[in-house]
């Protein structure tokens, strides 16, 4: 693949296909979208094969100077590569998931999704600060339209909330970026990752970046846009939101906050741990009382993102690797859970948990796959969820035992709400006649969910395939942070002298 500008192709191909979609009829638009995203997936698979784990830090690099402080600079390291693979993997699934459920203004819908595809790939590939920002923020426009045009009843409010919330967070980051460029004189992300800002400047820059990434991730207490957006978005929109858009915030922490502002990251670690702990426990409790399936999964997403921030700001190898695996795993699992909801929503057109029940009788295949994803969400060993959460909590324990305590509480709570959801929907007796009459998964739906289930099991059984490409990159981050990484409270400390019981016994004699 040498010499081929594969990243530019991955961005240009969906853009081009999206424009073509606007000029054809609904069925043709579906096929164009599906084929172009499948072509993207094939290219992505090729990239994964061609990527040399442990090779040069940045691979597939491209560089084209457009203007003084704006370059078309692309390239990926292992972290970006895997997140890009996640995007390319979920995209054809999203298109397929919308095959039947979207009947209204199909060409525009497909064009919006393909635009989204291009922008997401661009975010992970960008090596120029402003190019990154353009891709990062650009995703707002198609998502605003996807929620607002094809969403549920309350879609307008949700789309506004989504746009303005994230826009507000990001503009502060823009000012920080401008400041960074004017002090360091470069817009290259790799160069900035090695640039040392003075610690007092780092504090402000870190906070500005937090404003953006915390909203995007989302962290408690700025997560309130997410349940609305998730619930109102069409199924495929929810998949993209949960699977990829949320990862942008975490990716930002990995790419910017940790390596560029290590001092500030260490300084704010207690804040991050507190917020993550609250997010995990509080949103899990909120998820427990939801009556709407999508809302439950949306809140569980916020809780799972708590594991990501825990792991990242533990600033040790287990923590960061765990956080990255949680990101990949959550991308797959929450995406799959939204598809699972979408499958029965397409049949009954309600998201009320109380309307279902006993689906394991009439939809055994569905119940099986749902079980796999439920277990992955709970973090059962053998699924991807376990690997990520275990590593992330191990790392957290090194940094803070209290943090790990909050995190493990969250795991128990996640078992509570997920198993409760599964029980209510799949076991017992059907509560409505319509629910009892629903047919099992169609071939198309097997194609949606089957590949994700396989990926989830693969990541759970042999996580090394995913850890290997990222190992060196995590090492680079650790090099930047090890100077300031917190010592933690779990290390063995010299305690009091043991009581001399034997001597005491001798004295009695």
């Amino acid at each position, binding site marked *: 693949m040498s010499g081929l500008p594969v990243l530019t192709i991955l961005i240009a191909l969906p853009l081009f296909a999206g424009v073509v979609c*606007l000029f054809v009829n609904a069925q043709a638009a579906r096929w164009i979208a599906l084929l172009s995203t499948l072509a993207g997936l094939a290219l992505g698979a090729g990239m994964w094969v061609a990527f040399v784990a442990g090779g040069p830090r940045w691979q597939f690099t491209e560089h084209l100077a*457009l*203007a*003084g*402080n*704006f370059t078309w600079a692309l390239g990926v390291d292992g972290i970006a590569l895997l997140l890009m693979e996640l995007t390319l993997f979920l995209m054809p699934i999203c298109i397929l998931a919308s095959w039947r459920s979207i009947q209204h*203004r199909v060409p*525009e819908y497909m064009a919006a999704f393909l635009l989204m595809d291009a*922008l997401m790939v661009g975010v992970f590939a960008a090596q120029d600060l*402003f190019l990154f*920002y*353009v*891709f990062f*923020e*650009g995703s*707002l*426009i198609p998502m*605003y*339209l996807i929620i*607002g*045009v094809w969403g549920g009843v309350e*879609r*307008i409010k949700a*789309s*506004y909330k989504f*746009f*303005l919330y994230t*826009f*507000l967070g990001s*503009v*502060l980051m*823009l*000012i920080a970026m*401008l*400041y960074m*460029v*004017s002090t360091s004189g470069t817009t290259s992300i790799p160069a900035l990752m090695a640039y040392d800002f003075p610690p007092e400047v780092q504090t402000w820059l870190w906070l500005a970046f937090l404003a953006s990434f915390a909203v995007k991730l989302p962290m408690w207490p700025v997560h309130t846009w997410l349940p609305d957006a998730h619930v109102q978005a069409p199924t495929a929109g929810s998949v993209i939101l949960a699977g990829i858009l949320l990862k942008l915030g975490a990716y930002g922490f990995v790419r910017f906050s940790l390596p560029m502002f290590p001092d500030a990251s260490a300084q704010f670690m207690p804040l991050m741990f507190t917020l993550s702990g609250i997010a995990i426990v509080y949103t899990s409790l909120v998820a427990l009382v939801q009556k709407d399936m999508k809302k439950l999964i949306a809140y569980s997403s916020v809780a799972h993102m708590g594991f990501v921030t825990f792991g990242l700001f533990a600033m040790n190898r287990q923590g960061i690797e765990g956080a990255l695996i949680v990101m990949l795993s959550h991308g797959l699992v929450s995406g799959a859970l939204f598809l699972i909801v979408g499958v029965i929503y397409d049949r009954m057109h309600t998201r009320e948990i109380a309307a279902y029940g006993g689906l394991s009788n009439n939809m055994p295949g569905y119940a099986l796959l749902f079980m796999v994803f439920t277990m992955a969400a709970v973090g059962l060993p053998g699924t991807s969820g376990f690997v990520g959460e275990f590593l992330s909590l191990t790392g957290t324990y090194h940094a803070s035992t209290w943090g790990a305590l909050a995190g493990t509480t969250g795991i128990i709570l996640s078992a509570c709400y997920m198993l409760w959801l599964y029980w209510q929907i799949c076991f017992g007796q059907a509560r409505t006649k319509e629910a009892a009459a629903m047919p099992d998964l169609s071939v198309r739906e097997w194609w949606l969910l089957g590949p994700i289930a396989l990926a989830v099991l693969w990541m759970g059984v042999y996580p090394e395939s995913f850890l290997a490409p990222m190992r060196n990159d995590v090492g680079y981050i650790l090099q930047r942070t090890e100077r300031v990484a917190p010592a933690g409270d779990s290390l063995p400390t010299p305690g009091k002298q043991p009581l001399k019981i034997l001597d005491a016994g001798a004295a009695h004699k």
Partner: protein
Amino acid sequence: MTYFAAIVPELILTIGAIVLMMAAAFAGRRASGAISWAAVALLVAATVALIGAPTHAGPVFGGLIAADGFASFGKVVIFPSAAVAVLMAHGWFERGTEHANEYPVLILFSAVGMSVMVSATNLMSLYVGLELLSLASYVLASYRRTDDRSAEAGLKYFVLGALASGILLYGISLLYGFTGTMTFTGLAAAFAREGVHSLGLLFGLVFLLSGIAFKISAVPFHMWTPDVYEGAPTPVTAFFATAPKAAGILMGVRVCVEALGPATDAWRQIIVVAALLSIFLGAVGAWGQMNIKRLLAYSSINNVGFALIGLAAGGAAGASAVLFYIAVYVVMTLGAFLCALWMRDANGEPIEDMASLAGLSQTRPALAGAFAIFMFSLAGAPPLFGFWAKLVVFDAAVSAGLVPLAVAGILGAVIGAYYYLKVVKIMYMEEPAPAYMRVREPAQGLVMFACALLVSPAGYLLIGPLGSLADRAAGTLL
């Protein structure tokens, strides 16, 4: 003779306008099409005459004007947008107005006035240019004299504009009285010598800036804008929001940097306050509007604020940022007004109510798409080009150490994003309203397409050329 070589564009426009005025008077209304195309041709010729112009011809006519790179940049923005304003009126005044002929002529005269404004290096020529523009504008605002709203707009504009001219003139007289000179270089020397400790100089500065702030409708001198923009015929509103605004801001930049450069600390606080007030009031004022022209009026107030942020940064870098911003702003605004111009009901009568835009994406997808591009771009949402223009002015502010100003300004951008989104929401997320009449104006369609292409991500290819042009133009200021 060399003096005249420096003012070839103005000569073309002036002589052409006088000839066309005669033609308009004698040819009757049948000739209106020919006259407007002739006016467009003159403006294009004047723009072409700028090619290869000396980047710094120095002061001519005893320091009254300077045909330098800065002036050329301004004219390159002003002449084409005036030409578009002429094109936009095509087929507009023919119905219901007996004298469609004079419209292009008035635009030509105001173009001459604007071109003097951006080249002026003397307060006297500055005032003459400004008044030439203003007189033409007053007539243009009330061009549909039988329409109450248009007449009201003209009257309002005239009364308030005359007041502002008075303020400006008073400031000029104060400065002249205390320094004994009207040239920008002389003023700069006086300010460098005496600072702003002299109360007379300080007053002169404040009055001068207030007069300019009125002309560019910066808050707190913006009150006339929504009413005049709403009342004036749509092509005239589009014209007001683009070329004169660009000329006014450029004139302000030259005054601030060239004449008041040594007093930067004195005017910076004024500009900062005006910028922030404009951004926030422009953003908040537009919230409840359902009239598209009023909305775009507030949008123009909002955008002036962003341009002023670049000016507040000061120096050549700030001036360059303002030039970049204005160039992009003019393109976005012309595009948005072209879309608003095409809002016609089934009988071809213009509609200004935004409710009629409902579901436009289904009845007229291309028009809705273009409108959405302009709205997102005005909101400063990447990947559209309007984002980069905002980035450039904020970059200038941050580099000058004005980080709090940049933060406050960018928060205002978020508030403003709300109403731009509202337009997109109406077009894309509501059930279709009765379809518009299909406007058959290929020239306007072509301009709209060109504007949309410029502000689309394809515009990023222009960052290099436009940035270096703006840098070079700003470099000739000092």
